[in-house]
């Protein structure tokens, strides 16, 4: 399992943290100086200050810190990317021609940079490594100098502005406003980051593997690039057909639903319609515990307890059961999603107006008749949406299937067979040694794209159902 870090940057990260601390110290000094300056002005009794003294301090501190942090973040992250591109000049022409060889060459250079040597490196590797080292030394120096200069410059600028007339409160509030607005874009940046990282790698994957082979292929058998290229006649070994993974994912999710829907739904009905306040107060938090248990614990439970149990029961009945059956993983996943269904359904049932129940009682129905024939139909859209959300949760769940469902990509609809899922394959491909740029590694990104499309699609679908069929009772 042990793996060398592929890329450097550890020492750089440390120096960035140190620089950030230096900036904070400058900002603190700037706060103090600006505040003292304005207090001095006041004690000299000139005129009324526009703002409270601490606003002048905050003005000084933010001018010293914020631009400097921006410079630090931008320069600190851009330089590695730049260096990687500059290194291409050192590679021999045939290496620089394609992306796979470039990545290998880059790894070679990085090994030399980190002082990890396998034999004598080629002269161009040596030259590239030396260049890299000198660039990173220069860049560290430039980074430190420019960050400190910007910070000090900001502090001096802030100090020069300090004056009883200066509207420091307004300035500080404007800065806060911008900081808040920019913070709120992080959510968008994250989404963009997710989409771009997955989409770009997927596009590269689809250059290597045709799109229709991926979507309609019936065999999933990823191989390392090396295995493909080594034997000239063995190009056909690796196949990337996602259908077995897709079927496995849905098989496990369906088993999970067979557990979670009846249990979750009837629990919700009982809690919402029959249980008294005290029972609710005890049972609801207990059910929530099921949602709070880490998935790795469920995975361990599935692999250690449930899978052998399922196997022995099945063999007692004379069936062949794989030791990592879809049934075991699905059962445990079902337990995990019970609270999602029960708490969402509980909310929906409670939202059905009491007047509908009273009307049913008035016509002489029993409590259960009212629930079955009036309350549940009224709550149906919400319940369906809850079930769809639970499915999307089950499809995205990773640890249970990694630990209990195994890796055999069988195309099977039999829950007693071993199947594998999209998430389990992503984890197996990306954990452990990996070749960047190989079709195998890139296939994980294509699978992630599939996963995002399915889960977001299901969520969107659930939202539409609620919107379309929701009854407005007022």
């Amino acid at each position, binding site marked *: *399992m042990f793996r060398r870090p592929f890329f450097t940057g550890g020492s750089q990260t*440390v120096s960035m943290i140190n620089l950030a601390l230096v900036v904070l110290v400058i900002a603190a000094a700037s706060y103090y100086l600006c505040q003292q300056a304005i207090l001095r002005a006041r004690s000299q009794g000139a005129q009324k200050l526009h703002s409270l003294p601490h606003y002048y301090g905050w003005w000084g501190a933010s001018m010293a810190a914020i631009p400097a942090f921006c410079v630090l973040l931008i320069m600190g992250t851009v330089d590695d990317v730049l260096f990687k591109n500059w290194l291409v000049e050192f590679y021999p022409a045939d290496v620089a021609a394609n992306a796979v060889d470039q990545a290998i060459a880059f790894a070679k250079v990085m090994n030399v940079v980190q002082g990890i040597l396998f034999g004598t490196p080629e002269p161009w590797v040596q030259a590239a490594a030396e260049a890299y080292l000198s660039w990173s030394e220069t860049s560290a120096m430039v980074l430190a100098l420019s960050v400190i200069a910007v910070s000090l410059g900001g502090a001096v600028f802030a100090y020069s502005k300090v004056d009883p007339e200066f509207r420091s409160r307004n300035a500080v509030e404007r800065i806060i406003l911008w900081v*808040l607005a920019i913070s709120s874009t992080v959510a968008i940046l994250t989404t963009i980051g997710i989409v771009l990282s997955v989409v770009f790698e997927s596009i590269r994957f689809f250059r290597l593997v045709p799109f229709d082979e991926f979507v309609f292929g019936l065999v999933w058998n990823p191989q390392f690039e090396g295995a493909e290229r080594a034997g000239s006649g063995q190009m056909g070994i690796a196949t990337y057909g996602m259908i077995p993974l897709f079927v496995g994912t849905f098989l496990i999710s369906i088993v999970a639903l067979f557990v979670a829907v*009846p249990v979750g739904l009837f629990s919700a009905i009982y809690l919402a319609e029959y249980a008294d306040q005290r029972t609710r107060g005890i049972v609801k938090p207990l059910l929530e515990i099921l949602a709070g248990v880490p998935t790795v614990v469920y995975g361990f439970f599935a692999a250690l307890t449930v899978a052998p149990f399922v196997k022995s029961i099945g063999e007692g009945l004379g069936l062949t059961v794989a030791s990592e059956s879809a049934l075991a993983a699905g059962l445990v996943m079902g337990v995990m999603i019970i609270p999602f269904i029960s708490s969402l359904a509980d909310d929906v049932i409670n939202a059905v107006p009491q007047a509908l129940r009273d009307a049913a009682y008035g016509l002489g129905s029993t409590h259960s008749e009212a629930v079955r024939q009036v309350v549940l139909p009224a709550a149906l859209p919400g319940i369906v949406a809850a079930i769809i959300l639970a499915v999307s949760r089950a499809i995205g769940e990773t640890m249970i299937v990694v630990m209990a469902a195994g890796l055999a990509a069988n195309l099977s609809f039999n829950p007693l067979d071993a199947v594998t899922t999209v998430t389990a394959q992503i984890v197996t491909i990306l954990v452990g040694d990996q070749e960047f740029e190989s079709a195998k590694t890139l296939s994980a990104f294509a699978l992630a794209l599939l996963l995002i499309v399915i889960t977001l699609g299901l969520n969107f679908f659930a939202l539409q159902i609620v919107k379309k069929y929701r009854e407005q009772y007022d």
Partner: protein
Amino acid sequence: MTDVTVRGLTPEEARSRVEETIAARNSREVRFQWIGKSAIGLALGFLVLLFAAIFTNGVPGLFQHYVTIDVNLDRQRLDPKGDLSEESLYSGEAERVALESLYAAIGNPEGRTERRAARGILSTGSSQRLIAFILDNPGLVGQTVPVKFALDDDIDSFMRGFISRETPEADRRISDTTIAFVDRLSANGAISYELSDYLFFGSASRDAEMAGIKGALIGSILTLFVCILIAFPLGVATAVYLEEIAPKNRWTEIIEININNLAAVPSVVFGIMGLAIFIIIFGMPRSIPLVGGIVLALMTLPTIIISSRAAIRAVPPSIRDAALGVGASKMQTIFHHVLPLAMPGMLTGTIIGMAQALGETAPLLMIGMVAFIVDVPGSVTDPGTVLPVQIFMWADFAERMFVQKTSAAIIVLLAFLITMNAAAIVLRKKLERRW
């Protein structure tokens, strides 16, 4: 009312119809309630089963067998340089001394096979343990003192009864001779069953008897530290902006849809993003708590934003109006009045988000926190692992004793999670205000 065209039932007919079916309807009612109760019973039964499975394995995993033997702390053999430094002790004969003390305790076996059988009794970490003992008690050097060593995991599982005497010797992991020695030791009362110190103070190890969660626990704390440092300010700032400042326009609507979508993205996808962006593009090292914390922060951000917005919304508008009325600016209103009142709700949401982050495994596997790392991480840029990932790795090891160790680690993880969730509940109950 529309006219009733069908003839209505007479009261007698109606009563008789109702009475015909009332028994069946009532029993259906009882059955329905019974189904509801059994559904709850089933769900709680799963919960009990889960905890029972973890605790029956995990509680014994908190303990292990030790053997206490008299060791002659011979200075010349143990401390060749004579300065009692760690370096000197490691160059000495600690391992031989420990073994010879064991031979003495079981009556000095002579033959090669017997000695080999005896050697398997002590854990391979015994020399380190002896050195640590000397470093802690330098005053005892030169004397013969009782020292407590861990038993090898095979012997430990024999003492727990997982390895049966009845199994033929060839199928057993330990030989008859070894069993005879172990019997002699336990007859002398040298073997004790105590709370495992390796579990809490040991680092990652392939030997079940020495494996511990210290490194993973520290890694978890560092990762959570980074996570909270990023997620809490960003989450609160976003919530304040969206609730208090932002105009309701297309842009803020996009942000809101985004946040809801992010909450639905599977956690493993966040790991893939971390791998692609922070490790491949930005060139940050793998396996470090810094990257892990950033990824978990982005993952928990939606949880924190959503609960913070709810908390801000719960602050009544009259508070804002009062503040604005006495001349506070918009920002003063928010930071001096709204935020302090909304803080309990925000903290509750943050604690729940952190509990979620603490139990998360899949995204951290993606960024390489699954490496086998013996050193305890000292800072957020040292390679490390976290508790759930440690559990995942141990769950893969085949030895019987690792099942118990894994369950014990799960108990520790659950204890943390339950504490955090209980804190959130208490906080909510204590600071909750009704307007």
